């Protein structure tokens, strides 16, 4: 209860979260669990994950994001990653990782547009 957590906000059918601290492994896993729990609680159809404050994304974090995407997909939701820094995207590509199962957009506004387009399909 006392552990600092990353705020997950709700706006309509959508959850929005923007980690501002470095995600060490335990925190990343806790964050993932918090998100999934919130999706279940709110029946959110979408999640916007803003990573603009994250300057290093390594394989562990990629895995957590992938698991969030897979689990939310099973629950009928979509995940949009926004604010991915170009140098982070480059490093991921060079390592051979892809953020599978997630949509991406340049910022929160565009991310919400992506979700609304998906929902209208």
């Amino acid at each position, binding site marked *: 209860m006392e552990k600092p957590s990353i705020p997950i906000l709700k706006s309509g059918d959508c959850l929005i979260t923007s980690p501002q601290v470095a995600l060490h492994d335990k925190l990343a896993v806790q964050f993932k669990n918090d998100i999934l729990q919130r999706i279940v609680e709110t029946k959110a159809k979408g999640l916007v994950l803003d990573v603009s404050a994250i300057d290093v994304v390594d394989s562990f974090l990629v895995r957590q994001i992938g698991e969030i995407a897979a689990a939310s997909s099973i629950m009928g939701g979509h995940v949009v990653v926004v604010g991915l820094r170009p140098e982070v995207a480059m490093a991921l590509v060079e390592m*051979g990782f892809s953020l599978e199962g997630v949509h991406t957009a340049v910022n929160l506004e565009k991310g919400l547009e992506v979700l609304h387009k998906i929902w209208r399909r």
Partner: protein
Amino acid sequence: MEQKMIETLEIKNEADIIRARVRAKTIAEALGFNYMDQTRIATAVSELTRNAYQYAGEGKMTINPLNKQGRRGIEIIVEDHGPGIENIELVLKGGHSTGGGLGMGLSGSKKLMDEFDVRTRSDEGTTVTVRKWL
């Protein structure tokens, strides 16, 4: 000036992984690496120190600024006294298929850096050396 930048950091817990990559990024920036390379270096450090922590429970990272005949760069050594890596050739090749982070982190680091060397023995542990040049 550069002598002061030789750094050694013990990896004893998860927070040290973050500490290590922040330190590597800071030094890389001070040496003149651009954002892209700083991120590559920090990401490689994150992968290697995590491997050490996860598979050996401990590790040590050393950062050495390099200056070879006017060519400047950074060298990072991550060593542990863990169980060593079996089938290192296989691990490096099939980074994606080996279940778990070890292979991905190792092969990922190799792709991000200019030079990569790994020495591993089941009775001694593992030492990974990576270098990037300006």
